[in-house]
């Protein structure tokens, strides 16, 4: 267990290192001078040069990468050019909101996707299976921005049940703000539900055809008991692995959903930063979001390890 943990931690650190270099070098390529950007077009060249020196932009790349990453590790993310505030404060607030969105999405999508998939897998080939397969195939094919548009048009414009934008209001009550999150969560979960259901269906159908299930059936154990006691646990391993590795996909969905519903989360912060050439925000936000993705994969690996002791990592 310890060796496995160290191995996964090591590869996680490697990933973060490589990605930090990648993010830094991409920011390096941008033909925009951050000092010029901060001071505006009409600043004198002298003022720009002074700021460049103050920001340390005249030093060699490796030194700058070193200071950037060590500052980052100490929790100093720099200051946003656009907001003129420490990036860390911005990210803390925004990350909380994004995590709330993604977390609620997870809570909604995992049970639903797994249940639908199991029902379809147990009834393979029957009408119920066909209906679930067709729906989940449809869900998988809808990109988040399109399904979000459909949801807004149906639930906000046509039926007028739910608000179409999700700007949280600090004065409004918990219930009022929660209502605003329903459509974003639905949009976010839709294709994941489809994806999970399809995976679980295949996995369940495979397990039900395996030798040990047949043996159990031949021993005379009732089918209901076989499914609950024997098949379920093994059938859920594959989809569980997949959903955790799908966190990256989910992050993309979170960005799109945040933009579509005007929800001020981390994804929108990064995107707005990118639009305004606020490089420091983009760098820090990307790194934080990647850290979330990579550490969720680590948690997933540990979870899979605990769930299935047969898997031994070399």
């Amino acid at each position, binding site marked *: 267990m310890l060796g496995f943990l160290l191995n996964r931690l090591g590869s996680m650190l490697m990933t973060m290192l490589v*990605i930090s270099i990648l993010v830094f070098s991409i920011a390096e390529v941008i033909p925009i001078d951050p000092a010029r950007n901060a001071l505006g077009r009409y600043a004198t060249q002298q003022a720009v040069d002074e700021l460049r020196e103050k920001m340390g932009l005249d030093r060699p790349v490796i030194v700058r990468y070193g200071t950037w990453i060590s500052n980052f590790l100490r929790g100093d993310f720099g200051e946003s050019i656009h907001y003129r505030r420490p990036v860390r404060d911005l990210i803390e607030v925004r990350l909380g909101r994004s995590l709330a969105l993604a977390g609620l999405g997870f809570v909604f999508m995992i049970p639903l996707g797994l249940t639908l998939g199991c029902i379809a897998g147990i009834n393979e080939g029957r009408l119920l299976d066909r209906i679930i397969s067709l729906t989940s195939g449809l869900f998988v094919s809808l*990109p988040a*921005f*399109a399904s979000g548009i459909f949801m807004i048009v149906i639930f906000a414009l046509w039926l007028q049940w739910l608000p179409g934008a999700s700007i949280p209001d600090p004065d409004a009550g918990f219930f009022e703000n929660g209502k605003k999150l329903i459509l974003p969560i639905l949009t976010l979960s839709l294709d994941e539900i489809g994806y999970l259901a399809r995976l679980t269906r295949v996995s369940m159908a495979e397990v039900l055809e395996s030798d040990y299930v047949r043996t159990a059936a031949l021993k005379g154990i009732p089918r209901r008991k076989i499914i609950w006691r024997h098949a379920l646990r093994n059938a859920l391993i594959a989809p569980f692995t997949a959903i955790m590795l799908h966190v*990256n*996909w989910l*992050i993309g969905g979170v960005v799109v959903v945040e933009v579509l519903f005007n929800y001020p989360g981390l994804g929108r912060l990064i995107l707005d930063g990118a639009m305004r050439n606020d490089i420091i925000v983009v760098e820090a936000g990307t790194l934080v979001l990647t850290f979330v993705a990579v550490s969720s994969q680590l948690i997933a690996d540990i979870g899979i390890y605990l769930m299935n002791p047969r898997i031994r990592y070399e």
Partner: protein
Amino acid sequence: MIRQKPKPMSKRSNRLLSEIFQALAASTRENRRMSPPEGRLRTATADLFHSKSATIGLTIILFWVVVGLAAPIVSPFSPTEMQGPRLGYPSVVHWLGTDSLGRDVMSRLFWGTRTVLLLAPISVFLGILIGAPLGLLSGYVRGKLDMLIMRICDVLLSFPTLLIYVLIITSIGPSAIIVVISVAIGAVPAITRIVRSLTLDERTRDYVNAARLRGERRNYILLLEILPNVTGPLIVDTCIRVGYAIMAIGSLGFLGLGIPPPTPDWGGMINEGRAWIFMMPWMVLAPAAALSSVVIGLNLFADGMREIAQQR
């Protein structure tokens, strides 16, 4: 290849020889499998129409291909020039109304088909061009190279794809080529992995051993022996991947990072029309539905092909 003089037959070399013959026989069998005789194409199409989902999927895709090809004929107006009032309601002249710049939405929708149906396959093709050789090499050679390539793939796969796009496009600036390249880069690690796992399955087959014993070079074995035998699953995967690419290009357009205006692009149309969704929902509904239907078509087609492959 150096041919050795025949040695006096011992029992052992006899066994070796028979093994070689068996492998060679297997190789010709497999080769016949991969280079189809004439009737095979016909049975393949017949199979295709037996599968309901493949037929429906293909119909949807072909519909949009025809719309894309016939865009200059079927669109009533120019997609990039002002044709009527700004934000006009649907009318007999403008079936889907006009957008905020007075352009005909229907014409933009038709012309947008070209953008999507051109850029998505190109970017996937580009991704395969990079990913397939890497995957073949990685799966066939194994060892340190394999480990290195897989580690790099792991790193890239653990990085949220959309952020890769955002980073590349903001650092270089949005253009059709940059969109294609970044979508291709986003697809490479997954393609490499799939080709590698397919290669791992194939490399122990008899026909590969036979080619190796015949003394073929590595690149010959990879490109002319293994590659033709993994194309089936690869084509299914490509269909799904083109769907992903369409979604990605759409998402980028939606986020304002896609093909720069005035080129008609479904994602961009949704982005532009989003502000008026409560007043004129058709402006965004039409491109959203069009884009979804293309992806649905591709996925149905891929599902159908997988069914057919399993039945064989």
